[in-house]
């Protein structure tokens, strides 16, 4: 592909994402101003006079018209300042920066597990089509898909954490391990510090949350991949390859899989948004100090600047992931590449 064209395309894409984020920020801003209770209620001392209350309000800008508040917020936001949390009294950006890596790690591992296992099972059940194995796989998949992530999370805690005491389920790592923060991603930081024991412990803590996040995805990827394989096998080029004497294994891996992957990739794109939504509750269940936990605290305390900041972060991530998915279409589908 032409490098200049590629850069132009990437530039356009980033501009689009920026535009979408702008719209998103307006939506969030407006929705949050519908709020019936006073977000500052907890900050204003009970014995404060009306004037004192007003001055605190003014300090946060809540006394101005909504569009002015928005423009003010936007002005700061463009300089990388999302304001201070009302409760935490810390810059929102710093709070998010601390929490984000764990959420990204969790979502990435969850998605990866889902895709890898789902694809394997999809191919396996496809090869076993028409047999009992396929029907069993199908039944298990439809069960797995019926149970939402957070219930999987709880179920795992009940079974593997409490009943069997196999796996830890509180926090990202045993608090006895102290690892210097470098990238923020524990999975990398433990390795950078050369602490293999901490690394192993961290992984152990992540098994259940990741599995809970992955369950639905495994089932979905498996089903979609299998059914698109079935569809691709109806295509004439599969038959033509067979008539040239190509072996069934080669047909599956060389001819069918790549074409069948396209709907699966689309699914992963759609699922990316859901995955990040899923981390929110999983973090709450497993006491992981990520973005989701931060969000829940922010919601419980009506911390508007923080909620705003976290929402924007979630949306930015989802839009980025979607762009990556679009990019992978180019690899999968030569037709797009040539346009």
């Amino acid at each position: 592909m032409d490098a200049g064209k590629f850069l132009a395309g990437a530039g356009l894409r980033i501009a689009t994402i920026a535009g979408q984020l702008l719209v998103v920020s307006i939506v969030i801003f407006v929705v949050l101003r519908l709020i019936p209770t006073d977000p500052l209620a907890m900050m204003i001392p009970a014995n404060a006079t009306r004037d004192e209350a007003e001055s605190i309000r003014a300090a946060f800008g809540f006394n101005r018209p909504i569009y002015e508040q928005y423009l003010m917020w936007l002005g700061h936001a463009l300089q990388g300042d999302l304001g201070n949390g009302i409760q935490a009294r810390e810059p929102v950006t710093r709070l998010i920066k601390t929490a984000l890596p764990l959420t990204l790690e969790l979502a990435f591992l969850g998605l990866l597990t889902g895709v890898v296992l789902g694809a394997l099972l999809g191919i396996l059940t496809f090869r076993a089509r028409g047999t009992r194995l396929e029907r069993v796989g199908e039944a298990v998949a439809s069960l797995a898909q019926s149970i939402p992530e957070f219930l999987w999370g709880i179920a795992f805690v009940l079974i593997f954490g409490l009943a069997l005491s196999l796996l830890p389920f509180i926090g990202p790592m045993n608090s006895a391990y102290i690892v210097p923060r470098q990238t923020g991603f524990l999975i990398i930081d433990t390795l950078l510090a050369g602490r293999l024991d901490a690394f192993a412990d961290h992984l152990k803590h992540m098994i259940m949350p990741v599995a809970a996040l992955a369950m639905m995805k495994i089932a979905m990827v498996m089903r979609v991949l299998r059914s698109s394989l079935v569809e691709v096998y109806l295509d004439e080029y599969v038959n033509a390859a067979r008539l040239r004497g190509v072996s069934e294994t080669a047909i599956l891996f060389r001819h069918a899989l790549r074409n069948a992957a396209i709907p699966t990739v689309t699914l992963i794109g759609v699922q990316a948004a859901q995955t990040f939504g899923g981390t929110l509750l999983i973090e709450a269940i497993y006491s992981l100090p990520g973005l989701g936990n931060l969000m829940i605290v922010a919601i419980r305390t009506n911390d508007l600047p923080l909620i705003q900041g976290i929402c924007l972060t979630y949306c930015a991530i989802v839009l980025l992931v979607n762009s990556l998915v679009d990019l992978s279409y180019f690899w999968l589908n030569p037709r797009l590449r040539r346009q």
Partner: protein
Amino acid sequence: MSSRGQARILIGGGILAFIVCVAVLAPWLAPHNPNDQDLLQMLAPPAWSPDGDWSHPLGTDNLGRDVLSRLIYGARVAAIVGTIVPIGTCLLGSSIAIVAGYYGGYVDKTLSRIVDIWMSFPAVVLSLVLMVGLSPGLRSVILATVLVDWTRFCRITRGAILGLMKLEYISAARITGASHVSIMLRDLVPGVLPLIITLLCVEIGVAVVVESILSFVGVSVEPHIPTWGVMIADGLASVFQAPWCLVFPMLAVILTVMAANMMGDGLRIRFDARIVDRTRAPA
């Protein structure tokens, strides 16, 4: 071929009907008032365990409230949410999809872009934000869920409409003098109806899950109304002492979602089979 999918429809539909019956008859079925606190019998185990007794068949929670009664009353919120939300999302999502798909061009582009932006919010995040903006209560839960989930309907239905628009019977209707509204109602809607009904079923399960998620985070209905989600959240607090407080509402949610998915699957198979039969008919 009529048996294809029939079993799933019957089982799934049966379970859903049972839940609705329980919800309607809750005052007569429940052994206790769901909010009565029996402080002498906090965290009582289910009746069949060694220390259980039949006054609380499924035990009590950490405030001594009867788990079975709360479960039964919880079905009310589930039934209401599971009925109104699918209808709402369906009406909003499908009508926008039909308009976008039929008129195409800039109408379609604008609406699709709105859907894109909407979908860049993880559903959970958006519904939480909406619940912060709205006041807690059943109406808000329904509104928030509809506002979050219509996009799913819209996207899938629009895809199907675009497929139908390629078929010439839409143009054919146009040149026989049919009005736009008539084409949408007579030619497009029946074409996507199987899809919409299938989605509608699946949405029943989604609505119940979303409500339980919102309750779990603590931004759902008013505190005095028992819901399965609230029970799960409360149960998690006492999970070490009384796992049953957690297990039963979880099973209730899972059962509902499974029933809804099952019915949806069954209907999809049923409709597909009919389409296949049709295309197979004499060549």
